[in-house]
């Protein structure tokens, strides 16, 4: 009996000690999205961080890409915001305006802040107070991938830099020629397969409108009517509708890789920088990377990607920032991102990425960042802007009238802004 009692006491003490030790640990919750490769990479970084900081427990909250915003909304209403959250850069203004994020400049390692590229700083900066709220290892861009054999067969001119891009006329002429070429099922893959549940349409097609001389919203007056439904935008969207009607564009049902799929059914691809790794693996040297064409007087290309921020509700912002700094400096994580053709957002990472260096196969993508990149509107109404625009594009691609669809989208955007009294102080800046 005495032995049993002693044993119970020892066990209880051991359990209590373990529990107390676990309770002593600072728990940092990290909400993120990503494919299996990235999920695994984050897990390994956390293991290394915990080994270096035994008093910290990193807990991941995975939210699938297509339901990320819903998960975030649920976390907000349930008052369960994580300490660290990954967010899509164009949504930053909305989150900061809503009071969810805190400035990170005083928290993140200074050497990392000094290492950020201009576009990385831009994507993490809130335009009202010009403060930095998020940081990432990467940024992004979209280029025009071309099948070398097909382009040579139609005698297409190959641009060497962003200053030398195809004009709208050249581009459409090549599409028509490619449509008649043996082996080409579709002249271009615009990755419609991503659907309208992701940011793809606004991210990749928005710059076509901007290049054509208009925008999703007037960035001074913060009004969409007379801008999104202007003649230039209607003309640009009608042009894209014509490509679809002519059967030049890979349909949504065909998935997202017809450029580098077996038999190369698509001759061109308006694809993100991330497509490169898969395309080059499938096509070897039969691939050329071209800057985005000019659809009007100027060139335009997208930027912005998923970056890391610290929420205002975090009880341990210092540890949260320490984890972000650790993640962005982690050598193995960087090597993995580089292997996925990650677009550099830190100067040191650019130096580790020969793909984007001068003379590198994706150098043109990096050149676009400084010459033609146009960020998506950094406004709290962005969730409405992107949703309205995506619906309009989807409607037009399915045969709808471009003017009607864009007018309806512009109205929706302006109504949302009016409903929120102009999202002050945004409206007060004029």
């Amino acid at each position, binding site marked *: 009996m005495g032995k049993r009692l002693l044993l119970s006491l020892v066990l209880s003490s051991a359990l209590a000690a373990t529990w107390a030790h676990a309770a002593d640990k600072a728990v940092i*919750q990290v909400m993120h999205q990503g*494919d*299996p490769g990235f999920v695994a990479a984050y897990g390994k970084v956390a293991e290394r961080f915990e080994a270096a900081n035994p008093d910290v427990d990193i*807990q*991941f909250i995975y939210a699938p*890409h297509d*339901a990320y915003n819903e998960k975030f909304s649920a976390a907000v209403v*349930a008052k369960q915001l994580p300490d660290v959250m990954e967010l899509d850069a164009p949504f930053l203004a909305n989150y900061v305006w809503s009071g969810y994020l805190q400035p990170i400049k005083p928290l993140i390692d200074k050497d990392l802040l000094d290492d950020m590229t201009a576009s990385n700083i831009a994507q993490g900066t809130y335009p009202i107070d010009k403060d930095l709220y998020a940081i990432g290892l990467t940024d992004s861009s979209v280029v025009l991938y071309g099948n070398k054999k097909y382009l040579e067969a139609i005698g297409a001119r190959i641009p060497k830099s962003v200053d030398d891009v195809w004009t709208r006329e050249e581009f459409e002429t090549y599409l028509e020629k490619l449509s008649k070429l043996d082996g080409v099922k579709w002249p271009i893959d615009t990755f419609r397969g991503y659907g309208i549940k992701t940011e793809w349409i606004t991210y990749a097609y928005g710059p076509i409108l901007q290049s054509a001389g208009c925008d999703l919203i007037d960035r001074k007056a913060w009004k969409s009517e007379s801008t999104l439904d202007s003649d230039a935008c209607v003309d640009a969207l009608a042009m894209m509708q014509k490509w679809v009607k002519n059967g030049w564009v890979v349909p949504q049902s065909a998935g997202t890789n017809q450029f580098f799929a077996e038999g190369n059914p698509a001759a061109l691809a308006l694809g993100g920088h991330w497509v490169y790794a*898969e395309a080059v693996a499938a096509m070897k040297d039969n691939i050329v990377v071209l800057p985005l064409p000019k659809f009007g007087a100027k060139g335009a290309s997208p930027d912005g990607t998923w970056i890391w921020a610290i929420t205002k509700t975090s009880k341990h912002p210092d540890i949260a920032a320490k984890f972000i700094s650790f993640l962005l400096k982690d050598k193995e994580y960087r090597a993995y991102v580089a292997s996925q053709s990650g677009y550099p957002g830190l100067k040191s990472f650019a130096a580790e990425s020969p793909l984007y260096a001068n003379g590198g196969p994706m150098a043109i993508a990096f050149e676009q960042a400084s010459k033609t990149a146009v960020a998506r509107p950094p406004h709290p109404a962005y969730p409405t802007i992107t949703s309205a625009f995506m619906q309009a594009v989807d409607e037009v691609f399915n045969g709808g009238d471009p003017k009607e669809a864009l007018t309806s989208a512009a109205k929706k955007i302006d109504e949302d802004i009016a409903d929120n009294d102009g999202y002050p102080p945004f409206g007060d800046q004029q």
Partner: protein
Amino acid sequence: MSDIALSIPRARAAQSFSATRVLRLIQVTCIFIIALVIVSPLLLLVVASLKDDRFQILADMGSFRAFWVSIPTLSNYAEVGHLSGELAFGRYLINSLIILITTVCSGLIVNSMAGFVLAWGSLRGRAVILSIVIALYVIPQESIIMPLVIMVSRAGMADTFAVQIVPWVASPLYIFLFYQFFSQLPKELLEAAEIDGASFFRAYRSIFLPLSLPALATVSILMGIETWNQYLWPILVTQTDYARPIAVAIATFFGQDSIYWDRAMAASVLMMIPILGLYLAFQRWFVSSFIGSAVKG
């Protein structure tokens, strides 16, 4: 009777027999084609899960190659099985099974009890309650999902198995299904039970419930499929892999930049097996329930 007179009816009989055979052949062919069309997505899923190249899967879409694999491999299944940590599919599969079994079992008890009370109970305002139950069915889940998130998080249920079970146990549809089934049974059964001294609950448990196998099977299958395929709700109310179901885990294969069709297909096949098992286990009663519904006027 002459030979000619005899041969005419024989010829007619042979002609009619041959016409019947042709008609049957056409019927069988049509049924076979329809069955093939219905089964084809399933076949495509299984075949794609046996291909070792995710790009090949997409390249084959839209042609008959989608239904053929020259060198089948189980590597996708192995990869899904080997994923660990946050991607440990075994864990998610077990979570899904726990949620499925608990929800369906509790759902059968709660909904059948409610249906029985509405059909034969003596409580006042049964008709009004029934109307409310039917009215609740038309409220879309999306419209109540955020208030429900607030409720369960305030109740401290976030990231538990309970949060994925409790809100979905009682369902207007299944209560109505049970109500309809019980109300079609003869009232004499209840009266006989009461004469024998059985309580209302005893009559439900010992007489009406055993007679409701088709309704139980139908609700089990429908509720099972609904629970198994829950996607948005678990994302909203769970944080970690502790109680998350497999539908959420499969979503990792649909990344921002690329879709891992090969592994997604293998995981989907694995996800399909338990629900297929549930259907096969109950299909005899499930089918008889539908036949019964059709026969009764």
